[in-house]
């Protein structure tokens, strides 16, 4: 299936790492878990795509379009590396991406962070995202927005200039060698965008040993993480919003450079 035939972009996954200080008022035995909270938040904010529903009363209903369909979520994951500091994880099916919109990583991470913050105060050290780049069609982007996330870059202009923080971004395409092959071009393209949300200082081609272990089965995303690059630089602020923006931009740039497979991206404070 090519992007044009797909009803969705593909699975999107996020894992939040760091420390979570539970709210003192919350019953630790509460059954309102990451799954329920993420689903409820998605529904409330209009992000949940219900168009895949049918049957009975629901067969003929006009259903809400949205950014993703619910898959799964949790506080722990059986594939998480011991001691990695996983706080929460979320899996959705990203809806088909409009020509002038990015992959919805910013709202996805917003929803993930909101769900997590409902049970405690998160102090994030790293964010990992699986991006369905195979669902992007670079040729369909309008000429005024080849990287649609640039349409929303001015959001970050109104910020505390002292909030800038050094980060390391690992970008890995698994068994697909594309990312490592175009790493230099990627950093050039990123540098040519009129933005200072993420300023690249250096990059290096990296392999599996340099990639933080992800709670993902290889079959889920074309793993293991054999081919990638690590970008080091300054992020305008340490927030899921800024991380999500970077992820959206990198996904589009790599789609332009020919990537057609899922991309595993991790952003960590250094």
């Amino acid at each position, binding site marked *: 299936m090519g992007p044009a035939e797909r009803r969705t972009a593909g699975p999107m996954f996020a894992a939040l790492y760091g420390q979570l200080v539970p709210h003192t008022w919350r019953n630790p035995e509460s059954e309102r878990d990451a799954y329920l909270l993420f689903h409820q938040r998605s529904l409330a904010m209009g992000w949940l795509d219900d168009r895949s529903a*049918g049957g*009975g009363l629901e067969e003929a209903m006009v259903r809400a379009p949205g950014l993703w369909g619910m898959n799964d979520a949790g506080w722990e994951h059986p594939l998480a590396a011991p001691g990695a500091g996983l706080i929460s994880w979320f899996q959705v099916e990203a809806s088909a991406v409009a020509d002038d919109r990015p992959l919805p990583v910013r709202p996805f991470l917003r929803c993930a962070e909101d769900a997590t913050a409902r049970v405690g105060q998160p102090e994030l050290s790293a964010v990992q995202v699986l991006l369905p780049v195979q669902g992007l069609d670079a040729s369909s982007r309008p000429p005024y927005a080849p990287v649609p996330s640039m349409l929303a870059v001015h959001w970050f202009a109104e910020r505390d200039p002292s909030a800038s923080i050094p980060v390391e971004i690992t970008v890995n395409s698994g068994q697909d060698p594309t990312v490592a092959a175009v790493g230099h071009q990627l950093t050039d393209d990123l540098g040519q965008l009129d933005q200072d949300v993420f300023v690249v200082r250096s990059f290096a081609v990296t392999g599996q040993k340099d990639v933080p272990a992800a709670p993902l089965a290889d079959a889920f995303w074309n793993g293991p993480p054999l081919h990638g690059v690590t970008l080091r630089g300054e992020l305008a602020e340490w927030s899921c919003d800024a991380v999500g923006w970077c992820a959206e931009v990198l996904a589009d740039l790599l789609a332009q450079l020919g990537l057609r497979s899922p991309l595993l991206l991790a952003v960590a404070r250094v």
Partner: protein
Amino acid sequence: MSYPTRLARGVAALAAVAATSLLATALAGPAAASSDESAGAANSVDRYSAAAAPKVTVAVPGIALRGATSAGYKDEHGNVIQSSLTVVPLSGCTPVSGRDNPHYSSPDVSGHGWWDKGSCTANLADVYNCLYEYYTDGYWYRKACSPTVRVYPGGGSANRSTARHTCANTAYASWRNHVDVNVVNQSDTAEQPYNQADVACQVF
């Protein structure tokens, strides 16, 4: 391996399965294979040549094309299910039949079910969900059902049902996650709505 390569390998795997019609018939149930004798009769040369054997069309897991009409549902044995999967209910209160998209959850295809009160007032319901895989004969084949759980509304961790089945490969097929909610001590409507998704998982 690139995604297109993986998909191509999935197609090759399907072709291999299709070539082994006896195996596919046994796996997918008798109704998944049908002979097409009328097509053979229309060609008298073929009918009496060495290749005159009736063509056998073997149904295999596949993608339900947008707008395609469903032939219906079959159980694990290939029998057509006469049920209320998609009937329009006539009476009773209507609960919210909560479910998610069928999805890959290594190494399984998985789906959840839960309920909320909707127009019902009772506090407990029996909930289960089942996963159906689309085959190229147009039928949705039941591949897994959760146990029935008696749960409170809301869909929290202790109040969901889970159906899952181990994937045979990671080629794509269309799946439906149907959920059935039966409110305890209250008459409720009989629909079993679903969410549908294409998942990188085939089950034979």
